[in-house]
C-alpha cells in the first residue's frame, strides 16, 4: 500500500496536479508517525510512511493547507473523509485546492493496548497473519492482532469513502457497527452510577486541550475556553467540577457536527473515553430526528440547526431525562 501511495504521489507531483503531499512521516520507531507535508519525490521516498500506526486524521490540517498556494494531495482513510466532508460543508476547506486520494482504513493499532499487555521495550511490530510479532529489548512477544486494534477502529462505522478524487484500493461499505453498545450500557446505569463513571473518567483530565485541538469539529478561530470574556477560560479546574464542564460543553459544541472520528479519545494522554460523550449525542439525534451521519454528505441539513414540523417536542426530550 505504502509503495503504491508513494508512486502515485510522485506522479501527481511530477505532472503538476499538486505541489504538496499530505501524509505521515516515519519516526524513531515503527509507531510514532507524524502528519507531514512532503514537497519532493526524495522526501516521499525517504520519509513517507503508511502502516498499522498511521492513525492520525489529516482532515483538519487541510483547513490551513487548502489556503496555501497550489493544490495539495491528501491521503484520507474512510473515517477521515467524513471529517473532510463535514469541513467542506462548513466551508472550512477550499475543495479545489485539495486532491483527495481515498485509501483503505484500518484497523490501525494502538501502541497503548500493546503496552497494556505488559509488553515493553518495543523495537518493532509485525503483523503475521493477524498475529503480532513484537520485537522487544527483552525478547520476542506475540499477541493477537485484534487485541491491539485501536478503539476508533474497533468501533469502525464505515469503510466507505464519502469524498475522493481517486482511490487506491477498493471502496468499502457503511458497517453495521456496535459503536453505541457502550452508550447503551451507560444509559442503562442509574444516574448515580453514570455520574460516578463520568466523575471517575473526567477527573483524570489534565486540561491539555489535546482533544479540542485535534478535533476536526473544533475549528473556531477563538475557542470560548480561551476567551477571557467568556468567564469560563480557566486553564485548569478552578473547582472540582470545572473539568467536567469543559468536556460536556465541548460535546455540546460539536453535537451534530461530530463525525465520530475518534481522534479525541485517541490523543487523550489519560485515556478518557471522550468519544462516548459525542456518541451519546449522535445516538440521541438518530433516535429523535432520524438517522443522521455528520460528514456523510455536504448538502443535507443537520437536525440540530434545522427545524421542521415533524421534529420531536421538547417535552419528549424532557421525559427521556426523567428516570
Amino acid at each position, binding site marked *: 500500500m505504502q509503495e503504491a501511495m508513494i508512486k502515485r504521489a510522485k506522479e501527481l507531483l511530477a505532472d503538476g496536479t499538486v505541489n504538496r503531499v499530505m501524509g505521515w512521516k516515519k519516526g524513531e520507531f515503527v509507531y510514532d508517525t507524524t502528519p507531514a507535508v512532503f514537497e519532493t519525490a526524495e522526501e516521499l521516498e525517504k520519509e513517507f510512511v503508511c502502516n498499522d500506526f498511521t492513525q492520525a486524521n489529516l482532515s483538519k490540517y487541510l483547513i490551513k493547507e487548502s489556503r496555501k498556494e497550489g493544490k495539495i494531495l491528501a491521503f484520507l482513510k474512510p473515517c477521515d473523509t467524513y471529517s473532510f466532508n463535514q469541513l467542506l460543508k462548513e466551508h472550512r476547506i477550499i475543495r479545489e485546492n485539495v486532491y483527495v486520494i481515498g485509501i483503505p482504513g484500518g484497523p490501525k493499532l494502538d501502541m497503548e493496548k500493546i503496552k497494556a499487555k505488559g509488553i515493553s*521495550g518495543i523495537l518493532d511490530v509485525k503483523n503475521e497473519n493477524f498475529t503480532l510479532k513484537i520485537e522487544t529489548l527483552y525478547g520476542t512477544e506475540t499477541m493477537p492482532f485484534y487485541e491491539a486494534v485501536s478503539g476508533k477502529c474497533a468501533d469502525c462505522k464505515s469503510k466507505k469513502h464519502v469524498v475522493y478524487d481517486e482511490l487506491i484500493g477498493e471502496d468499502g461499505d457503511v458497517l453495521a457497527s456496535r459503536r453505541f453498545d457502550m452508550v447503551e450500557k451507560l444509559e442503562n446505569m442509574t444516574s448515580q452510577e453514570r455520574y460516578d463513571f463520568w466523575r471517575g473518567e473526567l477527573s483524570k483530565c489534565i486540561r491539555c486541550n489535546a482533544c*479540542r485541538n485535534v478535533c476536526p469539529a473544533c475549528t473556531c478561530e477563538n475557542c470560548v475556553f480561551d476567551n477571557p470574556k467568556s468567564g469560563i477560560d480557566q486553564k485548569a479546574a478552578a473547582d472540582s467540577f470545572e473539568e467536567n464542564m469543559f468536556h460536556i460543553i465541548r460535546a455540546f459544541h460539536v453535537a451534530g457536527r461530530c463525525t465520530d472520528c475518534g481522534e479525541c479519545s485517541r490523543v487523550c494522554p489519560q485515556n478518557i473515553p471522550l468519544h462516548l460523550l459525542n456518541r451519546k449525542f449522535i445516538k440521541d439525534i438518530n433516535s429523535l430526528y432520524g438517522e443522521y451521519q455528520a460528514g456523510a454528505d455536504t448538502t443535507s441539513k443537520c437536525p440540530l440547526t434545522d427545524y421542521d414540523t415533524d421534529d420531536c417536542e421538547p417535552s419528549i426530550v424532557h421525559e427521556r431525562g426523567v428516570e
Partner: protein
Amino acid sequence: MFRISAEKLNDLFDRIASKQTLYIPVDREDKAAEYKKYESGMTLSSALNTVRSAKDFFFPQTENLAEFRLSGKTIEVKDIRSEHEDFVIFGVRACDARSFGILDSVFLSEPVDTFYKNRRDHGTIVTMACTRPEETCFCTTFGINPTMPGGDVSVFPDGTGYSFLANTEKGKEFMAEISDMLEEGNPAQLAKVQENTRNILKRLPLANLKTDSFGGERLMKHFSSEKWAELSESCIGCGTCTFVCPTCQCYDIRDFDTGNGIKRFRCWDSCMYSDFTKMAHGNSRNSQLERFRQRFMHKLVYHPSNHEGEFGCVGCGRCLSKCPISMNIVKVMKALEDK
C-alpha cells in the same frame, strides 16, 4: 545496605503510611500507572513510570494562593495556604528524581517560591532503580544513571526483594523508622541486577543520542535554524507534552469567583498554547513555530545557558509516548544536531 523481601513490601508501606502520608505508583484500570495515596492492600505498579510525572507533588496542577474578600472599596487578603504535613513519595524513577533539581533551580532561586519550597521541605523522596527501561528512555543522554536513582533514599529491586540506601539526612531518618523491618542486603545479587540493566541501557535505541550540539553557546544558531518550520508544522498546539513533562513548570495565576469571595490560584500553563504570551499589548509569540521553538530552546539551550550547562530534559520519554502527533524532543534534537 539493607533489604526487604518482596512479600513484605506492603508491610513496609503500612508502616510508613502509619506515620506519614505515603504515595506509591499503582496501576489504573486502563493499565496506566499513577501516584495514589497509599491505602492498605494497594499493589505497587510494575509499570516503568507514571503517566503524570512526580512533579505534581511539589508543583501541583492547581494550588490556591490567596483568597480575597471585597466589600465596598475595601479588600481583605486572606492567606489560605494549608500547612503541609510530611509525606513520602515511593518509587520515583531516576529521571523524575533529577527533574526535582531542575524545578528547584527555578522555584528555589530568588525570589524563592515558598509554596514550592514548603512542599519540598515536607517531602521525602524514595527512588526506585530501573531494571526494565523502555525503548523511549534516554535519561543517560543527560548523564542520569537509572541504576543509581538518587533521592533521599534509593531502592534497588533485585527480582525477589528491594534493597535500601539512604542518601541524605532525611533519608537516614526515614531509614531509622523502618530499620527493624529490614535485613542485611545481598550486594552480589544486586550487582548482578545492575550489571544486567547497564547492558540493556547500552542497547536502547536512543542510547546514542548526544547533547554535544546543544547548550547556551548555540543560542543564535539553533534559534535561527530553518528546521523549526518543518518540525512544528503539524504541532496541534496542545499542552500534552508540557503537562506530562517532569520539568515543564510554566504557570498562570488566575482568579475565580467562588460566589463567596475571590480565590486566586496558580495552575499549570503551557508555552505551546496560542494565548500563553497574549497580554493587553499583544502576543510576543504569535505563531506555533515560535511557541514550539520556545519549548525546545528552553530545554536545550536557555536552561543550560542559565544553569551551568544543566539541560531542562531528563529523558523520561513521556512526551515520546503521549504527543498526539508523535513530535518530540528526540526528533528535535536529531534534526538540529551537528551533522
